[in-house]
């Protein structure tokens, strides 16, 4: 039976892992993702899962073990954050390019230095070119739902790519919130069994993984990998549709919140979308035509769909919770790409917020909408790029 529970985001992800019952989990603890593996280790100890849990000595080894176990045909999961994922860096690319559908809970945390354990998206945004599918979540329910869908997406024969399910550190990972945990059996049936592909254990058909590939074929393999990422888009849509049919919660590649007739739109990722919905509702009551576009799937990035969704609005504010040093924010770049080919482009600008956990209150977000109103009234954007709630600006 599905049940409503009050649970932390990390606890919810451990529940998803228990229900998925992977063959292998290899992980090394790091705040704020530690509790995911802590809870999962209890499930292993209590015999609730059949998983081989490998407690490795570093994140580099964790991802290496995941790749090896996945190449052997297993369904494989891990969890990490920030510097932990940075230590996996080399292996992140190798997992993706060896087309191993490893599944990761990435609890978003700021990158060092200075050392900071709180939320921003610098870790996953830094890894956006590594070849992983990236799916983001506003809250506990979405993080759990995304993780239930992740194996079905990543292991699809047209895709075979690793999937990173991202949620905000502390704000989601450590807070208790009401959500629904689905029935074990139903989840297990939805997820199905992983079909091994060129398994290392298939001794009748011995294969080499990770062979040398120079000028003659490297570019074709990279192109093939990109093709798989493109195909992932429709696979994600199909799997999300199947998920909605079975569990009743509907997800698209991004969420359009009161966008139909919106003139001023904010584009954002993860938990701040909850606050933004509250602010959008309040401003709508006052007659202001505002809306929110919340990114769910960042890789592959749905350029055309987003361009259609934003067509007709007058001004777009992109809120980035990370910085690409020396460039505009990563999300801003994508939205800018998506909008360029529109004949009637909206005004567009970028605001960086929340680095290292700097909080954004509802009034702060109202200020963001107020600024977009001023820009729209003046018919031009004063500052394309700026920080919100920062000293020295």
């Amino acid at each position: 039976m599905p049940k409503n529970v009050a649970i932390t985001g990390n606890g919810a992800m451990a529940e998803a892992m228990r229900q998925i019952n992977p063959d292998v989990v290899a992980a090394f603890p790091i705040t704020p993702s530690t509790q995911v593996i802590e809870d999962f280790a209890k499930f292993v100890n209590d015999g609730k899962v059949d998983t081989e849990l490998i407690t490795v000595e570093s994140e580099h080894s964790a991802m290496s073990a995941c790749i090896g176990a996945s190449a052997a045909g297993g369904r494989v999961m891990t969890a990490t954050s920030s510097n932990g994922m940075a230590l996996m860096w080399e292996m992140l690319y190798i997992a993706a390019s060896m087309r191993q559908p490893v599944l990761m809970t990435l609890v978003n945390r700021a990158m060092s230095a200075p050392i900071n354990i709180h939320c921003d998206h610098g870790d996953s945004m830094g890894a956006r070119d590594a070849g992983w599918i990236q799916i983001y979540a506003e809250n506990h329910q979405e993080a759990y739902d995304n993780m239930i869908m992740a194996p079905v997406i990543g292991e699809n024969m047209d895709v075979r790519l690793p999937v990173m399910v991202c949620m905000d550190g502390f704000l989601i990972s450590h807070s208790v919130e009401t959500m629904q945990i689905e029935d074990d059996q139903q989840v297990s049936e939805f997820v199905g069994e992983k079909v091994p592909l060129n398994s290392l254990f298939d001794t009748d058909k011995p294969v080499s993984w990770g062979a040398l590939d120079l000028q003659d074929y490297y570019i074709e393999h990279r192109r093939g990998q990109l093709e798989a990422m493109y195909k992932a888009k429709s696979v994600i849509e199909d799997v999300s549709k199947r998920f909605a049919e079975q569990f009743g919660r509907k997800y698209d590649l991004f969420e359009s919140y009161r966008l139909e007739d919106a003139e001023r739109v904010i584009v954002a990722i993860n938990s701040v979308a909850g606050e933004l919905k509250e602010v959008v509702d309040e401003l709508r009551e006052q007659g202001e035509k505002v809306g929110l576009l919340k990114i769910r799937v960042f890789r592959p990035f749905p350029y055309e769909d987003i361009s259609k969704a934003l067509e007709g609005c007058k001004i777009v504010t992109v809120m980035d919770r990370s910085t690409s040093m020396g460039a505009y924010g990563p999300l801003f770049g994508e939205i800018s790409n998506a909008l360029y080919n529109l004949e009637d482009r909206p005004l567009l600008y970028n605001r960086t917020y929340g680095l290292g956990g700097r909080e954004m209150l509802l009034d702060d977000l109202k200020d963001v909408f107020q600024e977009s109103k001023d820009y729209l009234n003046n018919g031009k954007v004063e500052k394309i790029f700026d920080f919100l709630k920062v000293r020295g600006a």
Partner: protein
Amino acid sequence: MSKYFEIRWHGRGGQGTVTGAKSLAEAVQGTGKHVSAFPDYGPERRGAPLRAFNRFSDGKIRIHTPVLEPNVILIVDPTLIGAKDIEKGVNDETVFIVNTEKSPAETKKALELDGQALFTVPANKISYKLFNREIPNSAMMGAFTKACPDVISLEALLKQARHIFSHVLAEHLVDMNIEAIKCGYDEVQK
């Protein structure tokens, strides 16, 4: 005012304040409401002031920001009376629940309240009697249900708490915490 029922806990690291907020949320969740519970995510140090928050609602809770205008303020550590941030966001309707052996009149004066409802409960005394140390959160939960029976009744709290505690505590400790909730409820003064 927020459309959610909001609580702000003021305690010190090591007193179980965050656990108290989480347990209360789980108990209220058990009655069919939507809940959230979370602390201020600063460095956690034993003895340092900390805040924790709850939101309860019949519908979905969408926001994750700290509670600015609480319906209820729970002061878990009486030495925090007089701390600047306690009175932030207080209005005429705010209800105070204070862990203290002092009288409600004395406590109101110390907090410089203008007529807001205030309940006192000797939660430390109850805690020392039962556990021989200072973990006042169960008694505070008992006091909460006396002050806000519309949010959760004593009966519902006891039922839910037994269920919640039995997942994390040995049986005799479950019984003692249930006793602490009852004492907290009984020893409230207004």
